[in-house]
């Protein structure tokens, strides 16, 4: 069964179909890339599914349940998490606290008013182990606002990962990062996703990253799905090369 399925999902911005009656399904455990030029609808699709913006029409099913109009909180409870293209962190909290907060929240401990958060060793240890997986443990006590861009992108993913989601959306996890840093970041992300058996949908512009790390690629164009297949299939798909890869073509 698909872990995620959208049926005729639609969103208008004014007269434009940002997402145009999209039917899209993801199987459990898949790692897939969502590609398309700017304005193709990738981020809007993810925003609709994750709950950042409301759906105009269509349905979203998660593990068979209709979550189209569910609250963000409910979606997270069910096991959906996401990272952000423009890094969204708690800049005045430490790196450790950023991740710890996700753990506290997941365990329902954020209701606790009268216990010191630092005293909860279980949470702290788990947060540290997440940081280790992401190679950020050396920065544990540093304010998130003081990290380098690459570290911030990793932390953004780490916070989402700490929620132990079943489905993880990654919105351009390597954007704004230098080329040499991209591979290490993607290595960490894919290893973490595989060992956690998390289903991952990655929005990406960098086609090298996409072809290297993602066994399935879904290409969008003007709000609709253009093509859906393996890297080889996508590479040889004429419509895709015309609309997307043409712009990316290089030496």
């Amino acid at each position, binding site marked *: 069964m698909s872990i995620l399925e959208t049926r005729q999902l639609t969103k208008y911005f004014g007269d434009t179909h940002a997402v145009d009656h999209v039917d899209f399904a993801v199987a459990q455990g898949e790692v897939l890339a969502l590609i398309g030029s700017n304005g193709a609808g990738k981020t809007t699709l993810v925003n609709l599914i994750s709950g950042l913006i409301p759906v105009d029409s269509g349905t979203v099913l998660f593990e068979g349940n209709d979550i189209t109009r569910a609250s963000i909180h409910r979606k997270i*409870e069910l096991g959906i998490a996401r990272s952000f293209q423009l890094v*969204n962190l708690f800049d005045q909290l430490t790196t450790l606290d950023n991740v710890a907060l996700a753990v*506290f929240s997941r365990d329902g401990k954020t209701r*606790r*008013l009268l216990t*010191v958060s630092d005293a909860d060793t279980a949470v702290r240890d788990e947060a540290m182990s997440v940081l280790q997986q992401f190679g950020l443990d050396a920065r544990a006590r540093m304010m998130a606002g003081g990290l380098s861009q690459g570290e911030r992108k990793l932390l953004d993913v780490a916070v989402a990962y700490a929620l132990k989601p079943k489905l993880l959306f990654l919105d351009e996890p390597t954007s704004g990062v230098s080329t040499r840093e991209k591979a290490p970041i993607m290595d960490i992300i894919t290893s973490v996703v595989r060992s956690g058996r998390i289903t991952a949908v990655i929005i990406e512009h960098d086609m090298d990253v996409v072809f290297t790390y993602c066994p399935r690629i879904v290409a969008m164009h003007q709000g609709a799905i253009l093509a859906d297949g393996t890297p080889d299939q996508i590479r040889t798909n004429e419509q895709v090369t015309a609309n997307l890869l043409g712009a990316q073509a290089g030496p």
Partner: protein
Amino acid sequence: MSVGALSRRSLAWVVPVLLLLVILPFVVEPYQTVLLSYGLVFAIAALGFNLLLGYTGLLSFGHSAYFGVGAYAVAFIVKYLKIESMVVFVFGGIAAATAVAAVFGFLCVRYTRIFFGILTLALSQVLWSLAFKFFWVTGGTDGLRVPTPKLLGGAVRMAVGPSADKQDFLSRRYYYYVLVLFIICVAVMWLIVHSPFGKALQAIRDNETRAEFVGVQVWHYRWVAFLISGAFTGLAGALWVPLNGLTTPDILHWQFSGEMVFFTVLGGFQTFFGPVVGAIVFNYLKTFAVGYTVYWQMLLGVVLVVLVLVLPAGIVGTVNRLALRLRGTPAT
């Protein structure tokens, strides 16, 4: 605000300061002790106020509402229930203020920043105008008098009668009563801001969207923070009335809300103890300045403008930064 280093250093200050506060009535004249009592009361209000500003990122311009409700609750308990026990005052003040905070908070926390500020201001002005209009209930501009209360349900012998005894009461027994409650408030608030709940509030302050996507229901948490804030400020109001002997609608006016904003910013709203220091310093400043000039508001305004432009970290914040720099640690 990282808990570790800074907190440990803050705590090192706590013991000598506490000692000083405890022995104070024996080394200074009663007038000074009473003056400090006012400072401690405002400090409790500041703690409550800053839970919203410093930790949740919500700037309220209407906190006089909760202080005033706490104060009037005490006055009503005296006038209508004929009870004069401090314990009842404290619980009544907290309960009333929290109830009002629950309603006002419900309306206000769905908004942030500007609209939040506007709404809090408007709602507190509604209360102020009600205190005026329903003068047969509230005593109007004459206000309501409150006599010296029984502490601890009468277990502590109290003085009634000539003003000398009253001053003795205020500068000894009442001062210690306020001091104990102040210490309890500091301890409780310290726990709250260092708890997982407190971290969630700070996350909301830093990034509302991400907080939502980490599973923290922003509206909920803001509302609870609002309740706690109202409770602390209401307690301060309840403690204030016996000191003042009287409560009038002035205490509900936006001017007082403004003073709360001012002393919190003065002390440094990005630190835990900043608002406490700011409240106490402000109290001395006001007592001093009011004797010198009628244009007290202008002075406040100018200082506030200067603070924002030049010293946004406030007193405690700036001291912290200097201390960090002296140690050679780069300020984060």
